[in-house]
C-alpha cells in the first residue's frame, strides 16, 4: 500500500526487528518445516507473506528480499527496479524521475536507514543481480532454507 511506505520507513528499526524476528522464529521451526516439506509450504507461506509485506512495504514479492538493506522500502517499486540506491534522476523534491507523483523509493529508503542502527545499515552493501526465477516465491522460506544449507555445509566440513 503506497500510503504505508513512509510510515514503514519511519518505523524501519522496529519493523526490521520484527522482520528479523519472523525469520529467526521460522529458522527455529525449520526441522518441523522440513518434515512437512518446503514445497508444500510454499503456497500458504507465500499467501501470508504477500499480504503482510504487501500491506506494510508494498512488497512486489521478488523472492529475494532486501528490505533490511533498504530501510524497509521495497526497491522493486522503483520503476527501474534499482536495488542499489537512487538513480541520478531523482527530482529536487525527492519524487521519482519516472513517476512524478511517487516519492523516490530510495529517498524513502535512505530516510528509513537513518532510523536503523549503523551496523544494520546494509544499504552500503552491493546487492547482486536479481534472479528473476524467484519472483512470486516466498523469501522467508528461501532464507530459512539457505541458512539451513549453510549450516549443514559448515557441519559437514568440520
Amino acid at each position, binding site marked *: 500500500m503506497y500510503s504505508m511506505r513512509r510510515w514503514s520507513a519511519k518505523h524501519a528499526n522496529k519493523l526490521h526487528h520484527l522482520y528479523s524476528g519472523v525469520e529467526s522464529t521460522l529458522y527455529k521451526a525449520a526441522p518441523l518445516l522440513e518434515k512437512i516439506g518446503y514445497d508444500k509450504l510454499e503456497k500458504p507461506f507465500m499467501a501470508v507473506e504477500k499480504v503482510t509485506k504487501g500491506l506494510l512495504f508494498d512488497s512486489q514479492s521478488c523472492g529475494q528480499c532486501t528490505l533490511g538493506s533498504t530501510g524497509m522500502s521495497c526497491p522493486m517499486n522503483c520503476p*527501474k527496479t534499482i536495488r542499489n*540506491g537512487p538513480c541520478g534522476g531523482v*527530482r*529536487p523534491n525527492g519524487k521519482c524521475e519516472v513517476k512524478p507523483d511517487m516519492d*523516490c523509493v530510495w529517498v524513502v529508503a535512505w530516510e528509513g536507514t537513518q532510523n536503523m542502527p549503523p551496523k544494520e545499515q546494509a544499504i552500503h*552493501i552491493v546487492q547482486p543481480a536479481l534472479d528473476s526465477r524467484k519472483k512470486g516465491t516466498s523469501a522467508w522460506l528461501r532464507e530459512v532454507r539457505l541458512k539451513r544449507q549453510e549450516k549443514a555445509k559448515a557441519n559437514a566440513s568440520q
Partner: protein
Amino acid sequence: MYFEDEPNPGENLPILPGHVSAGRFERVLRAGQFAVTAEIAPPDSADPQEVYDRAEVFDGYVDAINATDGSGANCHMSSVAMCALLAHKGYSMIMQVSCRDRNRIAIQGDVLGASAMGVSNILCLSGDGVQSGDHPEAKPVFDLDCMSSLSMLKGMRDQKQFLSGRKLTKPPEVFLGAAANPFAPPFDYRPHRLAKKVAAGAQFVQTQYCFDIEMLENYMKKVVDMGLHEKVFILPGVGPLASARAAEWIRSNVAGVHIPDAIIKRLAGAENQKQEGINICTDMINAIKDMQGVHGVHIMAYRMEYAVAEIVEKSGVLGNRKPWYPTRDIA
C-alpha cells in the same frame, strides 16, 4: 602526451603493470595528468562518415570520448557500433552501457565484442526511464542496475568468467567507469553511493552537469574525507548552455540536472547568450580543476560540440599537452 610504445592507430597499447586496460585514457589518468573527456552524440544514420565527423571536432582536445547509449531514452546509432568505428581509427572510447535496453546476456556479449574491437573503457549506467524518450511505449528491461552490471563486468575481467560462472578464454580488458550525480537528492547519501560503486568495480566516475560549485564542493569534501578520491578517478561533468531559455527547458525537462537561478540570470543578462554559456562552462572548469580529489573534467556539449575546443583552450587545463588524435603524429 606521447607514449614511447605508441602503436598504430586501431591497435591497442600494451597493458602497463598496475593497469587493467590497453587504452590511453587509463594511462593519462594513472600518469597523474588532468584528463579531459567529451561526449559524442550518436547520429540517426547508418553512415560511418557522420560518426567520424562528429569525433573530429574534438581532435587534440580530449583524452577519451564517451559514446552514449540511447541517452534520454532516444533511439540513435548504438554505442557499441560507434565505439568500434572510432576505436578502429585509434580514438580512446568510453562505451556507455545502460541497463534499460539490454539484459545480462546482451550486455556481456556486447562488452566482449567491444573489447575485441579495441574498446578499452566501459561506463555502466542504469539509464534514463523510457518515458523521457521518443519511444515511451517501449518495454524497459532493467534486468540489472548500474551496480550489478559493474560487478558483473569486473567479474568478467578479473575472474575471467560470465556471471553464470562459465569461463572466458580471453577476458575483456576494460577500465570500468560509472556515473554520479552529486546534484540530486538524497544529497548526504550520494558520497556513500559513490563508495558503493567503487566497491562494485568503478575505477573512474563522471558526474552529471555541474552548474553549482558549492554543491560540488560539499560533495567532494565528503568524498575526500571518505578517502574515495584515492580509489577512483573523478571527472566532474560540465557543459555549455545555449541560452537562458534552453537552460529553463533543461531544468524542467531533463532528469537530474540542477541549474541554479543565478546561472539563468547570468545567461539572460548577456548580449550573446551562446558565448556566455561557453564562458560559464569555462568558469566552471576553472573552479573545479583545483578542487581536491578531482582528476579531470567531462564536457557534455550537446549540440554545441564545436565549442569544446574553445572551452578547453580557454580553461588551459591541458597546459601544453596535446592529446592523441589520428593525424597528430603525422608530420
